């Protein structure tokens, strides 16, 4: 067994063990901490895959930013975190997850299984031969990644769109989470309802006493007044 294999198994145990604890921990704060542990395992897997940039990005984005966001959310919604961890449909959810995993394992695993006419498993991926090491990564792979982001024949447009997505998400998150209580909402609704009632009253006043032809000519001055 090579060192890489041992490292892979250790990292996989960290990832999967952390993941299982995330979905089963009673205390939501503990679940958030196990989520960080699972992210650390994923960092190790990225390093094994020679994706150093993504290991660093995972470290900064997931462990540094997203888990802090999640911990903040857990702290801000205190008092509900010790509730019952699973809802009433958890056995069905477990069965569905296991079935999905079994299907994916059959499709992706190393054992060829023939069901009816079709063969599943032991897929022959292009450029992958069993027992042979994967080809080396080009030294300038990060340079190529950066160039593909600014080249409009590759991912330039998608890169700009993700910038727009980030901007929209930022503005949206600020708007959604702004300090606005139920009382404010009710007051706003009451104001709106009062305005609508006033408009309806004005429209009724204009339309009822006048004949049809005059009502249409009288509508145009009445509309801007109704907005106030």
């Amino acid at each position, binding site marked *: 067994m090579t060192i890489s294999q041992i490292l892979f198994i250790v990292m996989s145990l960290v990832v999967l063990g952390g993941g299982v604890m995330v979905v089963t921990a009673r205390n939501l704060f503990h679940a958030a901490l196990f989520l960080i542990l699972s992210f650390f395992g994923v960092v190790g897997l990225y390093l094994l895959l*020679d994706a150093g940039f993504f290991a660093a990005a995972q470290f900064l*984005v997931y462990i540094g930013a997203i888990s802090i966001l999640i911990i903040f959310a857990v702290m801000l919604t205190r008092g509900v975190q010790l509730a019952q961890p699973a809802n009433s449909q958890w056995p069905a959810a477990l069965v569905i997850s296991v079935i999905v995993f079994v299907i994916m394992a059959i499709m992706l695993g190393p054992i060829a299984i023939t069901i009816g006419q079709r063969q599943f498993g032991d897929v022959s991926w292009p450029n992958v031969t069993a027992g042979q090491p994967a080809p080396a990564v080009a030294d300038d792979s990060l340079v190529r*990644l950066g160039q593909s982001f600014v080249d409009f024949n590759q991912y330039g447009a998608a890169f700009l769109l993700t910038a727009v997505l980030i901007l929209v998400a*930022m503005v949206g998150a600020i708007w959604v989470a702004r300090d606005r209580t139920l009382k404010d909402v009710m007051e706003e609704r009451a104001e709106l309802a009062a305005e609508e009632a006033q408009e309806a009253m004005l429209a009724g006043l204009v339309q009822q006493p006048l004949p049809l032809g005059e009502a249409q000519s009288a509508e145009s001055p009445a509309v801007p007044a109704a907005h106030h």
Partner: protein
Amino acid sequence: MLNGIPLYWFLLISAALFCIGLYGALARKNAIAILMGVELMLNAVNINLLAFWRYIAPNSAGGLAFAAFIFVIAAAEAAIGLALMISVYRNTQSVDPDKLDSLKL
């Protein structure tokens, strides 16, 4: 770094992580825990993308670019989702998705 690790090891690990996240998203009684499940699923997707990049096309930037896009989407999703949960908690004092049924008839 990949001495003796076949591609399907990565695929099976990421499938298992995806299904753990799926169970979390389906079965948890707390909306923030559901978001954690979704994060696990996004991580599984990213492991898959980078594994395929490494084994099948290590000379193209495509796999790395898609993994980077998934990172961006995950960050945006976490920000929006947690902002929603905080807003919901402010208005209802609860983050139980079973109780958020005011749109039901």
